[in-house]
């Protein structure tokens, strides 16, 4: 790998009771790179997202951000360290408008009162950067389409200028047009220099935007592919474990 990774997971292991959800998982993410994490149901994808988001503290293993070992013990801490996560359900407030949602919990203030002008300006700037099509930033989020909501959630994640953006199943609930919108969004985020972890079950999405594909199977890394050269069959084989897999680089 040419660039040093912005975030590295080393030997992450986590169990829920007797269930071993993650076993000795390694994952590197560099700037300007989309790493897709794929796997069947129960392969450990959500657990891995939880670890990166700081919502789950793994039983063993380390997280290295910018060459420094860190402990992601809370979502707030993960954000501070530059790892922003967009959860599958987006965690938006339906009754609040787009600006309010973007700055939820991180409101800009002018003295004791909220600075709506600065927040609205920043919201417009962020959404324009992502070329997001949002009809009105002062309309409630309940009036937006799934793709627009995803854009709002991504814009919110980018608010604190993170280094790594973790997207959990961003296209799971979307139609064809909206999926294309979100994938464009992922590419724009990468082109702006962020490292992106795209957790997905949809191979078409993964092949459309990913630079690298990491396959999880039963809690272990079962393949690390270069998206340019790997075939669909190779990746499916690694996901299902039916055929022997060819491994390429990456796994140390």
């Amino acid at each position: 790998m040419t660039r040093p990774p912005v975030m590295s997971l080393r030997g992450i292991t986590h169990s829920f009771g007797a269930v071993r959800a993650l076993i000795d998982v390694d994952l590197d993410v560099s700037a300007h790179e989309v790493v897709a994490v794929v796997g069947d149901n129960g392969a450990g994808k959500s657990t891995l997202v939880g670890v990166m988001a700081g919502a789950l503290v793994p039983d063993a293993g380390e997280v290295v951000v910018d060459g420094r070992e860190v402990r992601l013990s809370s979502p707030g801490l993960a954000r501070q360290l530059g790892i922003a996560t967009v959860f599958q359900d987006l965690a938006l407030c339906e009754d609040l408008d787009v600006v309010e949602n973007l700055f939820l919990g991180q409101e800009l203030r002018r003295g004791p009162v909220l600075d709506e002008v600065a927040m609205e300006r920043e919201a417009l700037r962020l959404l324009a950067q992502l070329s997001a099509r949002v009809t009105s930033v002062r309309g409630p989020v309940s009036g937006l389409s799934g793709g627009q909501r995803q854009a709002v959630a991504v814009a919110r994640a980018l608010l604190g200028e993170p280094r790594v953006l973790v997207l959990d199943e961003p296209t799971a609930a979307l139609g064809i047009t909206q999926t294309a919108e979100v994938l464009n969004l992922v590419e724009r985020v990468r082109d702006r220099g962020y490292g992106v972890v795209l957790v997905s079950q949809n191979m078409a999405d993964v092949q459309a935007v990913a630079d690298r594909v990491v396959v999880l199977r039963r809690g272990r890394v079962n393949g690390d592919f270069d998206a340019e050269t790997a075939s669909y069959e190779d990746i499916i084989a690694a996901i299902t474990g039916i055929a022997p897999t060819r491994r390429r680089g990456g796994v140390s």
Partner: protein
Amino acid sequence: MTVPVVDRGGIPVADRPDWRWRSWDERDPGRIPVLIALVLIALVFQALNGAYLSADNLVNLALQASTTGILTLGVVLVLMVGQIDLSVGAVSGVAAAVVTVGFVRAGWPLIVAVLVAVAVGTALGAGYGWMFARLGVPSFVITLSGLMVGVGLQAQVLGPTASVNLPYESGLVRFAQQTFLPPVLSAGLVVAVVLAYTTSRLVDRRRRIAAELSAPSLGATAARIAALAAGLGVPVWYLSRGRGVGAIVAVFIGLVWATDIVLRRTQWGRSVRAIGSSVESARLAGFPVRRVYIAAFMACAGLAALAGVLSAGRFAAANQSTGGADLTLTAIAAAVIGGTSLFGGRGSAWSAVLGVAVIHAISSGLTLLTADGSLRYIVTGVVLALAVTVDAVSRRSRGVPGR
């Protein structure tokens, strides 16, 4: 420099007609229908009885509505975080008992009696908040048991006579019954509020223009200022033709105004609306969810206690029927009629004013027509059903399932 946001057709959003600056309260859907209903109620009762819109009747109506209104304001806060308090009437009854017994029997100074009464109410609210936020007991059940405990406490405090009178010359009775703002003072307050509003609007507009955001036209700004001036000035002028604006009316409006600012302009207010809209999202966003819940329950019970103290002053007595079951239901109905959603997240402090205005406009009209009290319940019930239906339907049309 901001890049214009474009819509699907590539048209800059800022150029589209529906893209305009709207403040949060303007988006609140419940307000215009309620105002229309209020005008209709006024016209109907005026046609049936010429004394209805007389200054004297409206002065009384405002006094009656204000104590219920303070209760309603607390209910609005609890509804906004998506919870309910069924005990506000009982809490106000306890506070009324504490203030009269403390002042008359125990001989406490008035201010001490008032503070103790409000503190007792707030403490009950803290108990509800703690049980809800820490132990996860549904607020419906907590406050229902709070209602029973409150009724019992009220009887205990009042003791065997079950009714305690406040002397007419006491400060509390004079404040609640006979104190009215002098016309000069009320006019001065109206002018001050309008000036402050004008300044904030103009400053806001200039900042928006400086930030290259869409800003309302000067005409629209002027229209809003004129609407506020008329909305405050005309009632104050009209009431001044009678005895004037009662002190408790001023307290009520002042509390609503302050609550409105807190809800709309501060981070705490934002957290209240976020929690009412989606607790999980609010928690992930880092808001101190438990603390906000506890604060909302405390504010609600504290306001209920204050309303109880003022109503003890207005009736110059406290007895077991002060803050009976009917009062709690009226306060909750008023909050919903005024446009605060039962499902949380949507509402405004001003819905307390609108809601009690509607309810008391109806009850005052029916009283003037010497109608049976039973009719008042039926009419209020129907109005409440209408308001809740509007709430549920508007929520469904926005694609959000009610809980």
